[in-house]
């Protein structure tokens, strides 16, 4: 029974209670939030079939976010590694610098449709916060961003941007002071304000409707990519799609259109941060932030602390959609250390004019590792899902320099 059903979109593979494979996801939320979440779910299901809304979304993606992001070959790196062809889907070229732009924009559009006047969202690296602040400003909605105090200091540039865009940044000083606590605090804020505030969850996590909205939005990446590949190759060649995994929102978006290809044809590989790697380390299932998922925890069931140099990956759980892809063996997951990610950046900088953020650096590390072992007619595509400017300071502190 552990198979993905053909011809049903990935996000719709859940049962009537919101569970994927009958065990991941669900709606573990307080009674107070049940009705607002149900309302949102009904609204979302209506909007995704509404042509007018889809046109509006496409218009925003095109004119506000800058349209199709580039797809190109990394000639120098390919030559240097001497194996598979290495290509880059440069999502970081989007207005907003990361894939979070898609679901921040969609969340603001949905908030507008719902008639609610304010938005609340969580952020780790600040990319979702920044994009949500931008979208809220564009659509004249009030915006509150919850962010751990550790992340506020390590991603100060993004915090400055959010405030400039008019968002209120709420510092979260509990627990590990990172993303996991920001999400908890944001969800508590939602429980208290669910009648007036739209909750925008920053990744493909949370109760069923939240992860659906997120994955539905980021899937723009693979829609574009598929047509770009066909334009370039005339067909879908043997592919390796590499993507970093934090909560997993960029990977789902990057893979969505390719799920139904066989895994020998289109291989999907997710790369977690070494000390925040529930999928790679065979973590047990936990109920976190409204959903059942593989999650790092101690033997008493308390959610575990994580570590990553990359604030966007510093999260103990992972999207229920990735749990499903793991259990059905449709995707494979591996991990990469802080050092591995930094070394990958050095090599990329040397050969290419590309400045990935610390998050996709983890995927680049896997690319560099496997490319030499693959044949020349195989194609690796890395989702370069975030721009490095936000991390310049951290990187400089670690390795002494950051290229122009």
């Amino acid at each position: 029974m552990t198979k993905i059903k053909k011809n049903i979109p990935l996000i719709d593979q859940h049962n009537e209670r919101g569970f994927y494979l009958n065990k991941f996801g669900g709606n573990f939320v307080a009674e107070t939030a049940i009705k607002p979440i149900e309302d949102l779910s009904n609204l979302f299901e209506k909007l995704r079939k509404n042509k007018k809304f889809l046109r509006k979304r496409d218009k925003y993606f095109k004119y506000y976010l800058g349209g199709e992001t580039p797809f190109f070959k990394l000639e120098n790196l390919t030559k240097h590694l001497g194996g598979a062809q290495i290509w880059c889907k440069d999502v970081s070229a989007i207005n907003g610098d990361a894939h979070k732009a898609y679901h921040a924009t969609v969340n603001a559009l949905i908030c507008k449709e719902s008639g609610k006047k304010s938005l609340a969202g969580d952020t780790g690296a600040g990319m979702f916060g920044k994009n949500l602040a931008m979208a809220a400003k564009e659509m004249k909605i009030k915006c509150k961003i919850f962010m751990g105090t550790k992340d506020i200091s390590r991603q100060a540039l993004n915090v400055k941007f959010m405030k400039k865009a008019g968002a209120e940044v709420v510092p979260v000083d509990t627990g590990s002071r990172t993303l996991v606590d920001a999400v908890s605090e944001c969800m508590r804020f939602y429980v208290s304000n669910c009648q007036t505030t739209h909750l925008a969850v920053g990744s493909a996590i949370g109760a069923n409707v939240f992860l659906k909205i997120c994955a539905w939005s980021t899937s723009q990446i693979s829609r574009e990519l598929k047509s770009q590949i066909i334009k370039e190759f005339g067909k879908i060649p043997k592919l390796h799609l590499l993507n970093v995994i934090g909560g997993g929102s960029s990977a789902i978006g990057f893979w969505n259109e390719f799920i139904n290809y066989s895994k020998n044809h289109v291989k999907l590989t997710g790369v977690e941060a070494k000390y925040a790697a529930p999928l790679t380390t065979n973590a047990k299932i936990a109920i976190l932030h409204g959903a059942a998922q593989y999650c790092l925890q101690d033997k008493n069931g308390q959610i575990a602390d994580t570590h990553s140099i990359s604030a966007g990956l510093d999260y103990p759980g992972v999207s229920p959609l990735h749990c499903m892809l793991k259990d059905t063996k449709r995707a494979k997951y591996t991990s990469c250390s802080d050092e591995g990610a930094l070394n990958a950046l050095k090599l990329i900088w040397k050969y290419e004019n590309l400045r990935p953020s610390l998050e996709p650096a983890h995927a680049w590390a896997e690319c560099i590792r496997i490319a030499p072992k693959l044949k020349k007619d195989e194609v690796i595509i890395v989702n370069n899902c975030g721009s490095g400017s936000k991390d310049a300071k951290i990187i400089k502190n670690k390795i002494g320099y950051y290229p122009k």
Partner: protein
Amino acid sequence: MRNEIDKAFKITRKENRPALISFTVAGDNTKKKSLEILKSISNTVDIAEWGMAFNCPGADGPEIQNSSYRAIKNGIKLNDTFSLIKKYKKYKNSKPLILMGYYQLIYNYGEKKFIKKCKSVGVSGLIVVDLPWPDNKNFSKLCKKNSICFIQLIAPTTSKSRMKSIVKDSHQLIYQVSNVNITGGKLKSTAKTILKNYQIIKKINPTKNVIIGFGITKDTIADFKRANGLVVGSACCKVISNAIKNGLNPAKKLNNMLLSLKEKLK
């Protein structure tokens, strides 16, 4: 299902007052101290609610979070909570005990094992904040089988039809969340609105006891005298926090506070 909780309500009904229900966190601030607190307040309250500290709670306000944080820091584990309850239930003044928490801890412990353990140490009721209807049906049945009262929540946002289903599937006790909030927030609804919702729930099935919680403090409690029971949570945790901060005895301080609340219910 006859259980200690029903007996407690029988007494309060006879005395024509609402049941006073405290909420504190097991292991706050140490295992020993939390038991001491529980024993002390058992002289005053009718039912005691005990929280199972979890580090990613979805509906706790800052006061309860502080208590949970202290408890986890001092090493509280579910098995400790169970052995403390076992000790507590041997105490002659012990009251019916309701365990409250988030589903993750129960899921991790194993549902069946958890409920069996609850039964064996003498837990009378269970509240699981993030296991809403209808996902809680199996869990609720398991509780019933083991003579444990599974207490469902009804919020101001709960629709009438859903409310009816919840009441229908509920055991003898229902928890009304007073207003759209997390625990310990200032009441955003008037007492009149809250009592109106209370009457709506009671009308669906008058034989079920309905307790009101969230935002019940010394300033608001007297407005709800007509309810079957009232839960005071964050206010209790706050007293404990302050007592610890000021080097005072939390067990004594909290019992005094609860005594003054009880006065207001006369």
